[in-house]
């Protein structure tokens, strides 16, 4: 899911970088009004968690690998805007220091995994949980949020890969950037995430949200913000 340098054309990575910067600007403002300083240690740990969980490459035997991202659980615990910033920090450090994800693709990778994914997770959780604090309901909703957010993010990433042959190719029909079109990229990325990696993200999300529900439910952002939205 970490797009390397060279797979995206400038026509793709520049707009995505712009979207990411705009989202960050809004995110900083939102965190300033929404997230209290008590959360500082947790936000550091959340970013480190995201960094680490992405290092656990899981194999599809004889095939490719993939991993969870952690954005889903961070979004439920600290809200999508704080999750955006925490996961971006992890992704930017992965790109610059470890070459995991391209430098030109930083905007794209952050947009996919740090902007799009936490928002999908957060709202899927809100819709399924419908403000319940019943343990089974919350855990189930967290699983669904983790599952769908990762699956949809993988499809978004596949679209970015898959539109490259449409955007740019040489006169003799060879690709300039990612050589695979939508008909290849989408099934390849969607199926592995639908059948495997999405389930892992779901389990991690459910497990950690379940832990905080038992130990410190007051900390869960999606609950604190719950009443207001639910009354609409």
């Amino acid at each position: 899911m970490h797009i390397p340098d060279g797979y995206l054309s400038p026509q793709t990575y520049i707009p995505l970088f712009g979207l990411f910067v705009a989202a960050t600007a809004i995110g900083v403002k939102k965190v300033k009004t929404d997230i209290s300083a008590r959360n500082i240690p947790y936000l550091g740990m959340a970013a480190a968690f995201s960094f680490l969980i992405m290092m656990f490459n899981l194999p599809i035997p004889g095939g490719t690998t993939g991993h969870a991202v952690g954005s889903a659980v961070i979004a439920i615990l600290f809200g999508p805007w704080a999750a955006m910033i925490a996961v971006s920090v992890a992704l930017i450090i992965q790109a610059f220091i470890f070459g995991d994800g391209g430098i030109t693709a930083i905007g794209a990778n952050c947009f996919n995994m740090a902007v799009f994914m936490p928002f999908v997770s957060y709202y899927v959780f809100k819709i399924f949980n419908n403000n319940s604090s019943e343990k089974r309901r919350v855990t189930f909703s967290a699983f669904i949020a983790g599952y769908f957010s990762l699956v949809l993010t993988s499809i978004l990433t596949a679209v970015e890969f898959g539109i490259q042959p449409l955007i740019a190719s040489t006169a003799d029909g060879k690709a300039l950037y990612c050589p695979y079109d939508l008909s290849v990229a989408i099934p390849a990325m969607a199926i592995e995430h639908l059948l495997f990696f999405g389930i892992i993200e779901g389990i991690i999300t459910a497990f950690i949200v379940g832990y905080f529900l038992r130990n410190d439910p007051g900390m869960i952002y999606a609950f604190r913000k719950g009443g207001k939205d639910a009354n609409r």
Partner: protein
Amino acid sequence: MLSEKEVKMRIDKQQKKILVTLLLLCLITPVGILLPMFFNAGNAWGEWSAQTLKDIIGYVPQGLAKYSDVWKAPIADYSINSGDRSVIHQSGFYLVSGIVGATITYVVMLFISRLITKKDE
């Protein structure tokens, strides 16, 4: 009701517990390269190097060739020596990368959070 002091102690304990869990995660990061090795799984989809891509489709796309080396990461692929064939060495590099990366991420995020969170009254 818990007193303020008791609440603070509980929070400290919880944070310590999470930090220990993160440290344990650091220590088992090598699983992230050993499992794919064991099950003979390669790169993530779309994350092939220019050379690997050439082996798959027969050529390196021009634009990809131009951009793929735009940045030389100091600890590329979470390894200080990717030529080293020793599984034990690679596991060690991966583990150290995990500790270094998670620590930097933690510190940077603490710093940013300090700047952007709401001051408590």
